């Protein structure tokens, strides 16, 4: 069974994704059925976003009531499916991330993410190539929700983040030698420890409500290198940056599943008015 799964990793990952979809859909359908049993909603309501704005104390300007200084409207946790699917579909790759953000007034997202990657690239045919990159990364930053009044689980955000990655890399490589000096071709090996790089990310992200508190967050991050010091080995794979093609920048894709903790939002007490 395991060998079968390994052999058809991509198909398996697609089926898994569809299976997850269907689970979400089933749960949604079950939820709808219960609601239908309680009240007969018209067809228009059934097509509307079920994660619409929760009861929120608003003032006349449509802003949340309270102190007016700090309103935590939600905390979400999740993971990026991209490295997980890559881990399933690609040989010798293990990667995962943990994501969390704090939603302030459903307008600003303070985000943080930690990830790990262990990737080996090798050539089975020639057996002269073996590259491994192992390490972790973190990124944090701020996103602005352009659709803050639409829903607490859906939104379209833009943001700026800082990312930092530390990793070890090693490579078995081919040294051509030089016949003039009587040096023959050899296979060599080299390792580098604690390579540290950092970069900035400009993010555009679409958050789409899937189910109660569950959000699909997919979008693009335009990454610009900040400090990529020269290394003895080409930085081919970087945790968080992923494949590195020597360019100054890179467009990365993310697809996260986020879950909003139902305990929030937290409302602050209204201040007593001064006489």
């Amino acid at each position: 069974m395991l060998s079968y799964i390994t052999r058809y990793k991509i198909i398996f990952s697609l089926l898994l994704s569809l299976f997850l979809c269907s689970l979400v859909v089933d749960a949604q359908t079950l939820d709808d059925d219960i609601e239908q049993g309680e009240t007969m909603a018209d067809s228009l309501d059934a097509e509307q976003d079920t994660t619409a704005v929760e009861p929120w104390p608003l003032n006349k300007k449509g802003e949340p009531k309270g102190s007016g200084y700090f309103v935590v409207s939600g905390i979400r946790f999740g993971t990026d499916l991209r490295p997980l699917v890559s881990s399933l579909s690609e040989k010798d790759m293990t990667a995962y991330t943990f994501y969390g953000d704090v939603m302030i007034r459903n307008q600003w997202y303070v985000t943080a993410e930690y990830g790990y990657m262990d990737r080996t690239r090798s050539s089975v045919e020639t057996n002269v190539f073996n590259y491994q990159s192992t390490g972790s990364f973190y990124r944090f930053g701020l996103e602005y929700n352009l659709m803050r009044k639409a829903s607490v689980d859906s939104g379209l955000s833009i943001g700026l983040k800082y990312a930092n990655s530390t990793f070890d890399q090693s490579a078995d490589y081919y040294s051509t030698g030089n016949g003039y000096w009587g040096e023959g071709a050899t296979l060599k090996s080299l390792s580098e420890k604690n390579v540290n790089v950092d970069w900035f990310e400009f993010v555009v992200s679409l958050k789409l409500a899937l189910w109660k508190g569950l959000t699909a967050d997919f979008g693009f991050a335009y990454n610009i290198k900040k400090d990529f010091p020269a290394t003895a080995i080409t930085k081919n794979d970087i945790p968080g940056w992923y494949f590195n093609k020597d360019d100054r920048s890179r467009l990365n894709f993310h697809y996260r599943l986020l879950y909003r903790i139902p305990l929030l939002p937290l409302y602050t007490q209204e201040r007593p008015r001064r006489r």
Partner: protein
Amino acid sequence: MNFKNNLRRYVWSFLPLFIFLVTPSCRDCDAYSNPSSYALGAFYDKNNPTSAVNIDFESINGIGGAELSPMSNGKILLPLKVTERQTGFSFITSGLTDTTYIDYSTTVKVNGPDCGAFEQFTGLGVSRDPNAAGQPSYSGATGALFDSVVVISSTVSADTANENIQFLIDICDANTKTVSRNLIVTFYDLQTNNPRELQFTSIHVKGKDADPIYTDADKFSTIYLPLESNTETIFEFRIGEDDSDPNTITQELKVRFNNSTVISDDETGCIFTNGTGSVTLVSNNIEGDDFIFTKDSIFQKMSVDRKTVNTNPNFPNVKLYN
């Protein structure tokens, strides 16, 4: 209806993930950018950097290695030692020699499973001194072949179109400077070994008695004798009116040379590729640098002091002892 809408929504939401999965992420495999252990050098005229100079080298060697052959376009592949971080090269022309040391480091270039990973030479630096750190460029010493050596591309690749190192040579401008063909001869006192002034009835090219270079009106310790032809010239030093006079003494100075020697001009330091060099003496069909003559000769000793013909009188080509 609700089920269908939601299903459509979820499937569409996963579409970007599928797009990502089918998008390849692989470094291009480009044979020309593959690493090489040969740096590419080229020779240029300092005063006209766009035109390559075709120098007729006697030899180019990696120091301690065999002779290297330039390519048909005049450029040369310089083999770098893989096991060391410096390789020296010597450039020998018929008149000048020069030495350049190339410093470098190596990195591992990862190309991916299809192309593998290679050792790549990077950070090329050049210097005249093997104990000095390589620099992006350096200026040549006075009288050296190279006016300067410049690193153009510090990464060595298999692409032979992109030069790594340019050797700039200060070629003399033919409009303002011409190569000297005057042999510098200095007279010396045989006893004291000091220069001395001498006076001759005639100093002329053999067979051109009627067109003397110097006469008895001239009295110098250093004289300039214009070389004729491209291989050898015979000069005659005469004391006395003519050969019919038994008291007349005549002595020949026969010199051999070539006019294809690379020399550095004494005055300007620029380079002539058609200089006169390999000066030797010939006596009784014997070629050499030193000859001893009988006491009744004008000069008892002749010796070659400088093999190339130039302009600085402090470095005579031939010393004649009397």
